[in-house]
Structure formats: structure tokens, C-alpha cells
């Protein structure tokens, strides 16, 4: 289960990044750094507990750090789906179901995720605490649709078999494979092989 988090302060790993993020903005406008700080806080909680999410003490810490009302931080944190306000599994599965991915078979990816993880509905977590499944809007990688994001990494060109294999590996405790297309093609080159820029640059 999730360890209860009573207090939160930025640690020595986050602190330099926090200071740098705030320094990007003119004095008095430090509130602009709120999203960066929320991300840093979420990652720190992930380092501390293995689960990346934002408990309320972390939100309040960000508010204190930026001298803004806590409510202003809550508004931002609830607006963006990237901030997890509830604990998520070790692997946060985010499936894009927007039109391009959907046309390319995102329904199969969703079904495979549900099957392997045992999660019934979007937003749910698996009983073993390993997976949380979320439905997200376009992730901007339509060229390699359909896409599944596992924590920070995109896995592209999926189908039922590839998704199932990926998740089975994760379930078995294997390390995450390198991000990118699982069909073997380099970046977003045509599926039949590269057709341009085949010559090596002089």
C-alpha cells in the first residue's frame, strides 16, 4: 500500500532544479514556475515511495515555495492530467484514444491493457499495485499510432500482441524496454523501410 505522506519538503536532488526553475522568471512572477515545481514534487515523491503522485502536503509545499495561495496550486494540479492526485501503480499506463490512434487500433491496446493488468475501467489500478490505466488525449505522436505511455516513455506502433508482451514483461519484473516503436522501424520512418535520406551524408 501507499505509505502515508504527512509532510513534504523538496530534497537535495530537487532543490537545485527548483531554484533554477524559479530563476527563469522575473522577481514577483515566481508563480509561473508552478507546473515545473509540481512535476519536480511528483518525481520526488516517486523517488521517495516508488509511486509518483502529489499528496496534499506536496501541493502545499509548492504553494509555500512560490508564496501563492494553496488554492491556486490545487487549481493547476487538478487541471492537468499529468499530475496524479491519487497514488498510481508502479507503471502508469496512459493510452491515447484520440482519432488517429483509435483508427490505428487503440481499442485493441486498451483491451490488452485491461486483460493483462486486470483493470476494469479507466482510472483504476490493478490489485497488485503494479498498474494504473488512464485514457488520455492526443500525445502528439500520431505518426506512430497507436501509442501507450508507460510512465515517461512512449511505446509506439502497438497491436494486441505487442502490448500484451510488453505488459507481461513488466509484470514479470523485467526492466522497461527502450522507448519508441515496437515494430522495429527507426523513429517515424515508413514501415516498409526508409525511402529518403538513404545516402550517408558526406
Amino acid at each position: 500500500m501507499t505509505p502515508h505522506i504527512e509532510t513534504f519538503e523538496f530534497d537535495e536532488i530537487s532543490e537545485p532544479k527548483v531554484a533554477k526553475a524559479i530563476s527563469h522568471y522575473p522577481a514577483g512572477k515566481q508563480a509561473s514556475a508552478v507546473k515545473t515545481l509540481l512535476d519536480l514534487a511528483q518525481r520526488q515523491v516517486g523517488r521517495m515511495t516508488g509511486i509518483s503522485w502529489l499528496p496534499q502536503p506536496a501541493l502545499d509545499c509548492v504553494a509555500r515555495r512560490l508564496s501563492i495561495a494553496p488554492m491556486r496550486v490545487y487549481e493547476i494540479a487538478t487541471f492537468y492530467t499529468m499530475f496524479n492526485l491519487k497514488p498510481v501503480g508502479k507503471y502508469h499506463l496512459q493510452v491515447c484514444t484520440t482519432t488517429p490512434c483509435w483508427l490505428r487500433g487503440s481499442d485493441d491496446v486498451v483491451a490488452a491493457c485491461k486483460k493483462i493488468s486486470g483493470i476494469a475501467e479507466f482510472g483504476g489500478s490493478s490489485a497488485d499495485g503494479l498498474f494504473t490505466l488512464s485514457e488520455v488525449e492526443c500525445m502528439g505522436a500520431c505518426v506512430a499510432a497507436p501509442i501507450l505511455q508507460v510512465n515517461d516513455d512512449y511505446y509506439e506502433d502497438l497491436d494486441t500482441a505487442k502490448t500484451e508482451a510488453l505488459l507481461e514483461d513488466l509484470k514479470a519484473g523485467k526492466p522497461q524496454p527502450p522507448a519508441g516503436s515496437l515494430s522495429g522501424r527507426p523513429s517515424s520512418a515508413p514501415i516498409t523501410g526508409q525511402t529518403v535520406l538513404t545516402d550517408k551524408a558526406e
Partner: protein
Amino acid sequence: MAKLTIDGIEVEVPNGSSVIQAAEAAGIEIPRFCYHERLSVAGNCRMCLVEIEKMPPKPVASCAQPVSDGMVVHTDSEMVRRGRRGVMEFLLINHPLDCPICDQGGECDLQDEAVAYGRDASRFQEDKRAVPAPDWGPLVKPTMTRCIHCTRCVRFTTEVAGTAELGATYRGESTQIGTFVQKALSSELSGNIIDLCPVGALTSKPYAFTARPWELRKTDSIDVLDALGANIRIDTRGPDVLRILPRINDDVNEEWLGDKSRFSVDGLKRRRLDQPWLREHGKLRKASWEEVFEAVTNKLKATAPERIGTIAGDLVDVETLFAQKSLFASLGSPNLDCRQDGAQFDASRREFYLFNSSVAGIDDADALLLIGTNPRHEAPVLNARIRKRWLAGGFEAALVGEAGDLTYPATQLGADPQVLNNLLDGSHPFAATLANAKKPMIILGAGQLARPDGAALHALAWQLAAKFGALSPEWHGFNVLHHAAARTGGLDAGFLPGPGGKTTREMLTGGVDLLWLLGADEADLSQLPASTFVIYQGHHGDQSAQRADIILPGAAYTEKDATYVSTEGRVQRAQVAVKAPGLAREDWRIIRALSAYAGHVLRFDNLEELRAQLAKATPLFGQAEFRRLGNADLTGPSALGQGLGSAPLTPVFATYYQTDVISRASKTMAECVATITPHAEAAE
């Protein structure tokens, strides 16, 4: 100035005005939900659409559109009507059809505008959104399913109240207005969001399901639960005061009202003294007016005039004070005091005890020194005005004393009064701020005048004002912030010890044998000898009534035509909204009737005659208009021979919510004390 034409009417408005303001100037009403004159512009309800010629051919939100010279605006064209109908249809998609059980019904902007722009039936086949109802404490009842996300409440708490505890969380159709974390609203001005809410999402919890607006009789009156003199409207049905709402007065309360003033109404019905009481064999028994009058008369006759005294409380009106003063003059007793807290200070000039800068004058100030006062508790609406001034920029505040979060930054100078000497000799860093200010304000909390060194503090505060240029014919920066509505009126009417007269402290420690407490409920009776005969005249059975040997039941402020003087010296009149309960009577009538019994007949038979005499004795009560004072005489108040002590300046109120008999009798206020810890989660 920009000249524009709206629906064929030419208006000239200042540059930077919005089209909706120009329309208002032209007398044209544009429907709106999110726009509010006293809040920032959000532009998110889209109801105020208008058509502007020579602009892109689409409707424009008039609240967010600045005017320009030569603009031609149509507020009722076909495009506008269709646009507003579309907006209305979208707003009603998720708005429940629960008007019959909604407290806003009959005074709901959405209801009113739906009559003008709504369709007769919904085209929306899907399920409506439903939002759980949170708990925001004992005052505001949120029904967020009805919310149309205008964000007026969010902007009010952020901008005016300065507590920033409401926000819009989540997004799109899931947007929720709320506190996000479960908590009670901590602002003393939270009730105002009920007025601001254009729909029934925020309604009054104590007033829930009580009445419909068309059943209510409305009486314009004056609030007395703090000394600001907020203008209020009392809504009554039959014999009951059901609710109190603010009236607009830009010079006093704008359109806000503190929670205590708004929600203490249930206190007007509880613990009331509705008939005379007489102590016999150590026990109070019900009595008739004749009996108590006879008892008082006998007692007055049996007591030497210099052993008779009277102390007036915090809610007493000027007419009553004048009647009592006249009676005591006739009896030959100089023992009067309107300062039940025992304060002693030089009240020889009016400017010594007024909030001279005036409430509206706060807008002009550029530096502020608070001495021993927490305006957030003592006059929350005035505090909001200070916050408004701070928000405008170029304003610095400092505080000597203790106060929690004031909702604007104030340099804490500590609670030691000696720091005032450091300010005076210029050795304290904040002295430079005051010296550089063009219109500095010094606000002395009236509660501090009750200290043993109150008069010394009073004199010192004046010296500070004089030194830092706060006293000039154009600007009067010396202010006393009273917390009792009766105090300024009492001082104006001269309800003070006459030559050789005894003060509150002397009267309360055995200086008199017959003590007439005129609504003096906060007077410290602990030192009063058991032999002192106490007459209590007032409207609530509080501690003073318990000690009394005779109780004369009076009328509360909602039950009498009465004059009150606000802390800034504004003479205002409360009006009868309901009759006093049972045998209780207006206080001046009681005194007048008794005077006849006692053989000291007062020379007025009705309120007009009383007021005529009052105006003759104190001309300012005959003047209708309010004038801000300049200062012509730098001579300050006398320190009455006191030296400045070093005891820290402590707050006068432990809690905002219960400070007088009415709020102490109010269940709603008791709940507030229990739920809302002072300055919970101070946010800035």
C-alpha cells in the same frame, strides 16, 4: 473620454471603461452572470454579448471589451438575441430544474434571464452533470450542481476578502468551484458570496427553506454589530426578522456586510427580555410595568443623586442616551458614562475620537499604522477597504499589537507600546515610511483606550499623526476605530461624567448605590458590591440582566427608529422593521414614561420632539449630510497625566463572531465559533 453610441443613445465615458459600463451609463441593462462592478473581469459566462459595428462580424462580450471613440453598439439586434439564446441554452444544459426547491427562486439572475432568452424546452437528451455538495461551514450552503462557473465567489474571496480559499478545480465539464480540501470558509465576509452568486449554488444555510423573497417586507436600516454603520436591509415576515442583507453605500460598506452583522438574526429571537422583571427575596419574578416603575421611582427617591449612576452599552441609540442624559440632569446626578469598558480619554474635541480619514478616505491613504487594533475582527468591511487600497499599490501598512493575517501585508512592529516612542523619535525604520507618505493614516483601536495607560496611548497616537504630517486642513489621518456602534454617538451626545461625576470604573466599584445599566452587557461587574441596586435596561438576558434587581425590557436595533453614529462620525438612522417582543418597548419611551412616574417629566412626548431637542443640544444630530473633517488645530488630546506602560497591546476581541448580546444569543454565531478557528490556514 470616449464618445460612443449604444442603441442610438450617445454616451461619453472615461477611456478604459468597458462597453457594459458604457451601456449602464446610457441606461441600458445588459444581462450578465460573471461580470460584477467590484470584481475583476472574468468574461466567462458570455451572457453580455453585444454587436459592435465595424468589428469582426460576431458577438462581443461587452464586459471585456474596452470602449473606443465612435463605437456603435447594438445590444438588442438579432445577432445578439440569438447569441444570448445560445449561451443560455448551454448554461441550462447542466443546470438542474429544481427551482421549486431552490432558495434563490424569485431572486435568481438565471431564472430572470431564462425568461428573456431561454427556450421552452431542452434539446439536451443526455444526463445532466451532478456535483456532490460540499460542506463550507455553518454560513454558506453550497449546492454546486446549480453552479454555472461564473467564478464571482472565487474572485470575491481572492480579491476582496483576501482569503483565497475558493477556486475552480478540474477542467471542462468537470470543473468544480470549491475549497478542494474539506474546510469551512474562514473569511469574516463569506456571506457576501451568497449575494454575489447569480444562481442558487450558494445560498444562506441558516435561512435555508425559510421564505420566498416576495413574502418579505424590506426595511432599510443600519447595522450596529460593529461601529462601521454598514447600510443594511432587514427582511421580515410578520413578527420575525428573517435575514439581513447589505445595501449599497459606496462611502461606507460599498455592498458588503460582515458575517456577524448578516447572520446574527437568530440572536434577535433568543434570550429576549420580553417583559419587566423584579427581584424579590433574591429571585427575579415577572412584573408589570407599573410595578417596576414604582420600584425604580422609590429607589431613585431614596438614593442621593450623587449615589445614582448610569453606564451605557455598545448597542444603545442616541435617542436613548439623550433621554437618559436628560433624566439624569433632572435628577441632578453627574454620573454618566457611555464607555462601559472603562476607557478614559480626552473626548473634548470630536476629532479626538472619530475615524477622521473617513472610510472612503482610506482609498487616498498611502501609509497606515495600526495601533492595537485588528480591523479584520473589529470592522471586517473596513478591513476589506484597507485591502482594496493595498491592492491598488503604493501603500504600506504596519501594526503595533497582535493580529493574525490581516489579508494584506503589515510590518509587525511588536506588541510593546514603547515602539510608538521609537516611531516618534524617528529611530524606528518604519518612521521613514510614515515620514515619506503624503497621506499617512494612524488607526488606534478603541479597545486600547480602556488600558490603564489608554489616554497616554491616545495622546501619543495623535503626536505621531501630527509629526508625520497626517494632520492638515485637507487630510486628517488620526483615526480611532471603535468597535461599538453606540460609542461615537454617546461621545457626541456628551454621555460622559459631568462635573464631579463618576466614571465607569468608579461606578462599577461601589461608587454608586443605584446603578442603571443601559444595555451595558460587557461591563465588568465582578467588583460591584452586592449592596449596589442594579437596574438593567436592554433587550437580552445576558450577564448584566442576571445581576439586575430590576429589568426594563427594551428594543433591539431592528425594532426601533433610532440614530446611530458610525466610527467615522456619520449620523445614520435605523428604522423599525418589527415590533419589540411582548411588553418590551423602545428605550427612550421607557425612560420618558419613568420620568413622569418619578416626577422628573422630560419635555418630549414623541420621537420628533426628542430629536428636535437633541439637535438643539448637539447640532450635528440635526445635520443630514456627512462631512469629512480636516484638521485646523494641532493641539492633541491630553494624556490625563498617564504615563505609557509597557504591557503588550492585546486584541480586544478573542473571536470575531460573538462580541455582543445579539451575536452571543445567536446559534449560528456559536456554530461559527466552534467551526471556524480564527484565521484558519491563513492564506496570502
